[in-house]
Every structure is written in structure tokens, then in C-alpha cells.
């Protein structure tokens, strides 16, 4: 399970929070945790909205 983040600089978020351990995962193609997140999304899952969104 994941939760979206808000980009306080405006624009698209640059990371997502992994709820199991609170890790902040950057949207970087070579990051294996991001690759896992993309796989999770591709399976039809949706991250929780960011707080305050």
C-alpha cells in the first residue's frame, strides 16, 4: 500500500510513501522500490491520496 505526496513546489509529486514502513520512494526509473510501485499500480492498485489533497 502506498500514499501519494504533495509537491510543495507545485507541479507533479516526485515521490510516494510506502505505508508498511513509511519509506519515501522517489520517482526514479532505476530505483527498485519505484519499480515495485509501478508494478503494483499496473496490477490495478491505486495509492491513497496525499494528506490535505
Amino acid at each position: 500500500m502506498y500514499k501519494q505526496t504533495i509537491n510543495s513546489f507545485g507541479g507533479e509529486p516526485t515521490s510516494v510513501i510506502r505505508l508498511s514502513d513509511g519509506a519515501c520512494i522517489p520517482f526514479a526509473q532505476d530505483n527498485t522500490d519505484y519499480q515495485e510501485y509501478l508494478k503494483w499500480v499496473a496490477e490495478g492498485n491505486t495509492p491513497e491520496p496525499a494528506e490535505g489533497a
Partner: protein
Amino acid sequence: MSTIAAGTTTTNALVSTGDTTGALVLQTNGTTTAVTIDTSQNVTFVNSANLPNTFGFKNRIINGAMIFDQRNAGASGTATGYTVDRWAYYGAVASKGTWQQNAGSVTPPAGYTNYLGFTSSSAYTVGASENFQIYQFIEGYNSADLGFGAAGASTVTLSFWVRSSLTGTFGGALLNSAANRSYPFTYSISSANTWEQKSITIAGDTSGTWLTTTGVGIQVNFGLGVGSTLSGTAGAWASALYVSATGATSVVGTNGATWYVTGVQLEKGSTATSFDVRPYGTELFLCQRYYWSKALETSYSSIASGAMITTSIARMNVVYPTKMRTSPTITTSNIGNSIISTGLDLNPSGTFTAYINTTSAMMDIDTPATGTVGRGAVWIFGATATTLAASAEL
């Protein structure tokens, strides 16, 4: 009087004998001295020496001596994931064994202080498509020069010290990133509970796709129990996913069996040379390209500095020890125990958002809404069990 004569054995085919007083001099380009061997057998090269397997930084493996264990600090684990730095464990079925730095507290081989150990916790019969393994992913940048995947690929030699309570034939494999090219290998352990040094020479793979940048260049795999589907014929490249050799001993198949390893080296060439002992700090830097953690070292350790950007958010600039392979995943533990020092100490609530790149991260740390906007702040770990970690593992 000096002489040059044919040798008398296959190991000294040509013998140059100096006289009783002078040095032996080799000349090139006419009478230009290239190499001198003096009467004390010291060798001097007039110009550069091209000895690719002799000098430092020849080992493509990082933390081959199992010195660094940033994640676990010597604690044991059973889960799939990273053990000591750069070395990961995969178990197809949970809780079939325990991994730990210096498991069993045996004396390492001479010259080493650490090893990685695995202890089987049951007598498990591995399924055909199941595998248990210890492995390291070598980054493509560190293997690109080997030229795998094309004609002229370099021969490599894998060497390591291993010790097991079992004897027999054990296995492992080299693989590419896509795991569709693999080279199963075997090694034998002849004496139980005795360190033995092994080396396996492998002709470079001239086929397949081998990554050469930040992806997995080569996977070095030691099997601890691998099913038949994932095992292949030793000593040949195959277009298949093999993580070990057919018929290899299964460590997880014997309750209480141990398998320890250290001094792992993968180098260019067909000869296993001495282990590449790099400076302690240098080896740690190499590890930190993939993972680092900051924890309390003394009473109150400063972690980062920044400022309050709202009354409830401290923006901290966290600078990494070195440039990481990719933008890392950042994790924290117990940061509620830490302090945002602004003159008024604030304890973080435990949540944060980070803007992450490969050299630093800007972390917006949530605090109670009692801060003063614009005030400078230092992030301090003031209690035990507080950590900040970044992972860019392959």
C-alpha cells in the same frame, strides 16, 4: 658470465642466468633499457607496467570480505533481502534458514575478520522451481569493461573462501540482468567445518544483453538449495535462468547445516590473484553508493541542517556520504525521538516528505505547530534507535 639457455622443465622454458655481480637488464627498441632486475631481485620498470590482475581495484565484488553490515550491525535475519552490505539472501520459502555476519563465531580464514554465514533451520526438500541463494548484483559500470555480450568478452575468475558442515559438490551461477543468460558452476568442499579457498574461471559470455551503466551488470550467485528447473549444466553458458548447477548440495536440505563465505572476488583474467584489500573507508564508500544509514553515534549526533518553512515543517538538507547509484528510497525509524533544534527544541511527529536526488535530499519533517518560520534548525539524533537510511540497491 651470463647465459641464456633452454629450460629443463615445462615451467622454465627459458632461463636467463646473470653473472655473479651484475643486474639483469632487458632492452627494447635497440639498446633502450626496459626492465632491470637487480642483484637483490628487485624489478624496476622504466616505463609503465601493464599487469591487469595484480594491482588494487581489480575486484568487481564490493564488501567481498563481509566487513560492513550497516543494516543489521551483526544481527541475524531470516527474511529475503539484504544481509551484510551488498549481499542479499533470497529464500523461496520463509524461515528455512538464518543469515548473519559471523554466524557461529568461527575463526575466519587467515587475513580476514568477517564472513557471511547461513544456517539451515530445517530439512527442507526444495521444489523444482524453488531456490535459496546468497547473491550480489554488480553494477554495470563496474563490469562494462569485461565486454560481456560481444566477441572478445573477457575471461573472469571468481574466487572465495567457503566453509560448510556439509561436504560434496556445491553450486552457483553468474547471470545477466534479465536472468536469461547464466553460467552454472560447481565447487567441492572436501572437509566439513574447514575453510577452503575455491576459484572458478569462466570464459566471458559473448551472447545476450549485459547492462553497462546503473543496472545489474553481473549477478554472482551462490546456491543454498536450488530446484531442478533452476539448475543447469555446470561449465557452460546457457540461454536460461539457472542460479546453480545440477546436482549441487542443498544446504537447506539438512537441519542445522552451515555454509559460510568470505573473500569473494570476481576479477578479470584466468587466474585467481590475492584478495583485493582496499582501505576500510574506501570500501565503505563503495557500499554507500547503494546504502547508507545514520544513527546515534554519541550523545546528540547532528544529522542535517535547515530551517522552519512553516510553524510545523522543518526543511532539512540531508547530504549523502557519496553519490548514489540512483535517487534512493529514504526510510527513518523512531524519528519522533530526534530533535529539531531551533532554539526551541521540537520533536518530529514521525512523518516527512522528501525531495530526493542522487547526492542529497531535502526532507520536510513534520513537527508540532510551535516553530518559528524562517528560524534556522539543526536535526539531531538524541536518543538510541533513531535512524535515517537511504537505499539505492540494485
